[in-house]
């Protein structure tokens, strides 16, 4: 069914006027906003914005955390046929200049003083920005900037306007068409200016509905919205699917209270990037380590059962009677209370996306009975491309293409997607649009991957990073550095990995150990060490890392495509890779090319078959001074395995 966001709002308000649309915790109490109250607010805001001069096809910026009035403003803009642009609330002021000028934005919604300050700061560079409406008046009482007004004033003006023009907002909403532009999301380009991804009502809603059908979502779902609304993931979960399904979106009290709010709300549908799941698990583990010996014993015994039985149980595979009883017992004393403590007692469907998730982390949640799954998508595809069915969640794939999606793999290994959810265009950038969107409707994801025998999509790496082994036993085999690096990084002992192999006869890696995890491991073995450099060169540590590498090799050998990417030699670096030294990006991604240049003697030694190599490196200390670190690094061989043909 094709419709628009504001039409869906009116539909919910007519069908279930008193049902909760949103909740926001204020003064310690969850305040409910019903669908009818929300619709009334949106209509008044739309009237106010129209009166202030917002017109069809014009753009309006919204910037702030998840708040009912932010979403109401987005709906009000869409009611008038205007296009909301959510911006990241933690972006620096200067980063907001480009989107605002690029889309000639005259209207902005700002959550609070912080956001207002930002917009006022860039106003000189964005002279067309006439109207700024703020939600939270705290600290803004003495501001007298022209065009700055509270959303309450806008609401009042809108109500007055509506009283004179009966049915104005509804008439405007009726004019909206599914093919109209609905929203624009700016993607952070690594180079150059960000690009505005234009989506229509139909592209967003079509995907939202397809995703909802896939998981059987209803209006009874509860969602906690705590990621930035400018991220399309959050926007889909707390806006597009919210209106498509009519469920309840809950806004946390503040960023600091998310974990408390999570427990209070008990969402049934949950979405977070892997680092959030990791953070939750770490906090549980730390508290468990502090618990009494008996509690720890019980916990670990129960978790062993969960690891063995839980995933199979979640995947609907048969489980023996004894295991079933043991799991029931564990659920009663450990998993149930633990889920409750994580705020996941009621979770029916939880998704993680955005980056690769470690198998242990993934299995942990599934083993305690949380239906955690992965999905694949991006801003350009309105998120939903591939989803994992409930009983087929695996750590190393991202699911099956859902209804409406076609996937094919280009000759260079790139995944191409055709779906009703694809972007309409990059805003004012036909060249960039043509680059990713072919005439017959295929979108280039720039991810390399393939569909496996079960029809699951597996992502390997970014296309531009995928290389080939040249010469040696695996001549011509595919080499995916990030895939190998991630597999190694999933071990808690390994912090960073840089893999080389493109155009070479075998794969070699340089490893950074995780000084906390390995240090702890060493202490428990009464292994004395002086610091990172000393610890890294211990023969015992080399053995530990070698075990990790060989486990990865054994795993890779079962992979049809990537068996040739097995690691044959490795070394442990004498210093931690650091963004200050230019070795990592600010978002902590390894800069392979730069590291290869900087540590050229090491790379050469790896490939020359040496067993040790002396290296000197300049380092920058945190106080800005620089110095030299030198060491003789050992280089070890790792066992590789004969590729195993996977049984289909």
């Amino acid at each position: 069914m094709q419709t628009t966001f504001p039409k869906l709002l009116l539909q919910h308000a007519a069908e279930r006027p008193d049902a909760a649309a949103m909740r926001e915790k204020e003064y310690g109490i969850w305040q409910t906003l019903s669908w009818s109250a929300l619709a009334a607010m949106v209509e008044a805001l739309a009237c106010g914005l129209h009166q202030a001069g917002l017109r069809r096809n014009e753009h309006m910026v919204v910037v702030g955390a998840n708040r009912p009035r932010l979403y109401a403003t987005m709906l009000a803009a869409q009611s008038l046929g205007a296009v909301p642009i959510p911006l990241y609330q933690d972006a620096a002021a200067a980063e907001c200049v480009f989107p605002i000028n690029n889309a000639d934005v005259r209207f902005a919604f700002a959550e609070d003083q912080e956001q207002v300050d930002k917009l006022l700061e860039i106003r000189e560079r964005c002279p067309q920005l006439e109207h700024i409406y703020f939600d939270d008046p705290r600290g803004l009482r003495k501001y007298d900037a022209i065009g700055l007004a509270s959303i309450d004033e806008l609401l009042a003006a809108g109500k007055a306007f509506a009283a004179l023009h009966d049915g104005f907002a509804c008439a405007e909403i009726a004019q909206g068409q599914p093919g109209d532009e609905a929203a624009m999301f700016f993607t952070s380009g690594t180079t150059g200016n960000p690009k505005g991804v234009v989506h229509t009502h139909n592209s967003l809603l079509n995907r939202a509905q397809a995703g909802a059908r896939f998981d059987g979502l209803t209006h009874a779902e509860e969602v906690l919205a705590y990621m930035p609304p400018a991220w399309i993931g959050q926007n889909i979960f707390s806006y597009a699917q919210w209106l498509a399904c009519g469920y309840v979106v809950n806004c946390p009290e503040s960023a600091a209270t998310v974990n408390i709010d999570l427990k209070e709300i008990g969402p049934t549908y949950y979405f977070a990037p892997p680092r959030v799941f990791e953070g939750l698990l770490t906090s549980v583990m730390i508290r468990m380590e502090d618990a009494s010996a008996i509690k720890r014993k019980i916990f670990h015994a129960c978790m062993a059962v969960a690891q063995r039985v839980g995933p199979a149980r979640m995947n609907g595979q048969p489980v023996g009677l004894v295991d079933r009883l043991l799991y029931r017992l564990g659920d009663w004393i450990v998993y149930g209370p633990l889920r409750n403590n994580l705020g996941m007692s009621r979770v029916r469907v939880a998704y993680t996306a955005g980056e690769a998730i470690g198998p242990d982390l993934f299995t942990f949640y599934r083993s305690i009975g949380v239906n955690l799954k992965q999905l694949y998508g991006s801003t350009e595809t309105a998120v939903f491309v591939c989803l994992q069915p409930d009983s087929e969640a695996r750590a190393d794939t991202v699911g099956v293409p859902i209804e409406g999606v076609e996937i094919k793999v280009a000759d260079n290994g790139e995944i191409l997607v055709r779906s009703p959810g694809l972007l309409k265009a990059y805003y004012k950038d036909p060249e960039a649009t043509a680059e990713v969107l072919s005439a017959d409707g295929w979108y280039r994801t720039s991810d390399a991957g393939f569909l496996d025998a079960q029809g699951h999509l597996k992502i390997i790496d970014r296309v531009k990073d995928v290389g080939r082994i040249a010469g040696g036993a695996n001549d011509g085999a595919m080499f995916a550095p990030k895939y190998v690096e991630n597999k190694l990084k999933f071990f808690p002992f390994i912090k960073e990995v840089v893999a080389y192999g493109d155009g070479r006869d075998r794969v070699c890696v340089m490893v950074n150990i995780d000084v906390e995890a390995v240090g702890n491991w060493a202490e428990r073995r009464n292994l004395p060490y002086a610091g990172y450099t000393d610890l890294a060169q211990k023969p015992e540590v080399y053995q530990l890392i070698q075990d990790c590498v060989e486990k990865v090799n054994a795993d890779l050998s079962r992979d049809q495509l990537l068996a040739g990417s097995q690691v044959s030699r490795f070394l442990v670096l004498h210093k931690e890779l650091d963004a200050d030294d230019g070795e990592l990006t600010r978002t902590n991604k390894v800069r392979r090319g730069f590291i290869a240049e900087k540590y050229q003697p090491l790379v050469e030694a790896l490939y020359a078959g040496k067993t040790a190599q002396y290296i000197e490196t300049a380092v920058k200390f945190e106080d800005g001074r620089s110095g030299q670190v030198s060491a003789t690094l050992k280089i070890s061989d790792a066992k590789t395995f004969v590729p195993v043909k996977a049984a289909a």
Partner: protein
Amino acid sequence: MTAKKIGDVILDVRNISLSFGGVQALTDISFDVREHEVRAIIGPNGAGKSSMLNCINGVYTPQQGTISFKGQTFSHMDSHQVASMGIARTFQNLALFKGMSVIDNLMTGRNLRIRSNLLLQALRIGPAEREEIRHREFVEHIIDFLEIQAHRKTAVGQLPYGLQKRVDLGRALAMEPQVLLLDEPMAGMNLEEKQDMSRFVLDINDEFGTTVVLIEHDMGVVMDISDRVVVLDYGKKIGDGTPEEVRNNPAVISAYLGTTH
């Protein structure tokens, strides 16, 4: 909400002298505090700042001098009476109930305003319950104002020092005071915590129109947020005026930086 407009004298301290045995803590101190202003008392260690606050607060009884509050003159103040007249304070070394939650600590600040008797409160019936809800609502506004929502139910003793200071301030605010006495609100804080606390003090003064009297060591903070400053040294007043005037006062410079004699 009223816009800040400095009004008439609300608190007038006249010729206060206080001694402990042979130690003369305060000698003939006089100054006034006007409504809605931020008034700072500064001075080196042992200058008598906290003693001055304790006299206003009724903890100490000065041997000489009078204190007038809203036109009423007292030769000595009584703590309970001071509180019920609308003067609240925070403490340099925190005096919170460490085992109690943030909410319970703030609720103690509402104590003077609770009308229902102990029995009704214990049984939580009828009017007592309604009253508690009303007070709790007020406390929730303070929690929102001081941005401590994440710590509502945390025992105060488990909070970091900077947050405990905030709770201490919150409890004083729970009394809805007309005059707020702050004893070194920024002591022991890092720069960020000091900035937060300065913002809260200014917001309190601005949004609620509360008159603030504060003792502070950090000269940067004092000069930034105060309307007028009193300078004490060895129990004597050596300066009084706007931050600018005080900064240029030779006696103050010599007390703080020392001079060659």
